[in-house]
């Protein structure tokens, strides 16, 4: 009886010994996992020399650890199977008196090693997955946070400007553009945002000599006629380009730029338009770079625009 206990415990001990081996090979404390798609192909396609631990030998060592664990597991299963067969035969030979009940034999000699093997296999798989996803420290610096792109906002549009000319997005290529979707009958937020835009444009032009074109697209084309739009925008800044058009064209453009707008408080002819008050910063290639909400005032806006410009210039150099 004690012999079997001894064998049992020794086999368990062998498994923990194997897992210790595994932990020494696995440098889980020295990695950082960063993003999903990039790291998987990066950590195995470019194994560079690492100051603390060589990546190549690292991965090959961890492979050998898995192999060792699997071999030990199978070995243990084999041993236990033979043991169980031997014990069952002994049980049978020694006659009617059962040394141990069969259920105990079955559970201790079949299920337990099988369960341990399954668990060991699962742990090995999890560890392998971690290794595959992890990036060694000092290897991949771009964590994906500044290269990640949001949803692609923007698209082609065709509207009429306040000079009665038809413009589409090609006319704005080569300029930095600040785009705002609003309407002239806005009680407070609309005028505030347009004023902020005008102030920021002024600051940028006077201090940094950097021209940004402000564009105001009306989401209330039924009431904002072209002359009215021109008169309204002239009070803020003569450079602001006003755009309007038929309802379908405006709706199409608003959908492309992910702007929500809806008529509320309708009382006959008088209504307000609820909308998402965002100012978009668009680069010369007509790609939306940033989105500014109502919490930005004129100085912060100009600072942020300058930051974007500097980033673009640094990338180009």
């Amino acid at each position, binding site marked *: 009886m004690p012999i079997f206990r001894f064998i049992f415990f020794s086999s368990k001990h062998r498994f923990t010994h194997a897992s210790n081996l595994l932990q020494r090979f696995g440098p889980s404390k020295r990695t950082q996992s960063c993003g999903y798609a990039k790291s998987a192909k990066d950590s195995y396609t470019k194994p560079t020399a690492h100051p603390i631990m060589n990546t190549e030998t690292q991965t090959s060592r961890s492979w050998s650890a898995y192999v060792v664990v699997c071999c030990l597991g199978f070995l243990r299963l084999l041993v236990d199977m033979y043991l169980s067969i031997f014990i069952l035969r002994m049980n049978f030979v020694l006659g009617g008196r059962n040394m141990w009940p069969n259920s105990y034999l079955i559970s201790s000699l079949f299920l337990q090693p099988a369960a341990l093997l399954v668990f060991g296999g699962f742990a090995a798989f999890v560890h392998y997955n971690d290794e595959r996803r992890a990036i060694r420290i000092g290897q991949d610096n771009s964590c994906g946070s500044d290269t990640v792109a949001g949803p692609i906002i923007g698209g082609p549009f065709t509207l*009429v400007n306040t000079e009665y000319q038809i413009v589409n997005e090609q006319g704005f290529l080569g300029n930095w553009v600040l785009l705002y979707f609003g309407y002239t*009958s806005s009680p*407070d937020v609309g005028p505030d945002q347009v004023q902020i835009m005008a102030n920021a444009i002024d600051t940028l032009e006077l201090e940094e000599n950097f021209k940004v074109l402000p564009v105001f697209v009306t989401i209330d084309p039924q009431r904002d*006629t*072209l*002359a009215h739009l021109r008169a309204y925008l002239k009070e803020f800044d003569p450079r602001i380009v006003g755009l309007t*058009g*038929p309802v379908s064209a405006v709706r199409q453009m608003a959908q492309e730029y992910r702007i929500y707008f809806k008529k509320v*408080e309708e009382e006959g002819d008088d209504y*307000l338009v609820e909308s998402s008050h965002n100012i978009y910063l668009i680069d010369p290639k007509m790609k939306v770079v940033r989105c500014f909400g109502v919490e930005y005032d004129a100085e912060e806006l100009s600072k942020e625009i300058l930051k974007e410009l500097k980033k673009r210039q640094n990338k180009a150099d």
Partner: protein
Amino acid sequence: MALETYASGKGDEIHTDVLLKARQACYKARDAFYSCLEKQSDKKPTEIASVGLLYPAECKSSRDEYVKNCRASWVKHFDRQYCRTKRTHRLLDDRETRRGV
């Protein structure tokens, strides 16, 4: 095409009541009315303004001035905003007098 008819300049009226001067007059009247409300806050509000706002009869003249200078939808918008800020201030300042929460 619809765009060409738009570009030809049909129906070009200018609504002057949202331009700068009108806006500023509206804001001034609105502020006058609300300050009247603050000053007379101990009087009982009897008159109905709009969207659930009540005001005492002393402020009736400033109310009329306010309504004259602003569009109806703007009046409702500002009244609603005023009620909301009033309510949050009441919730924030009332901690000592109310028991429980």
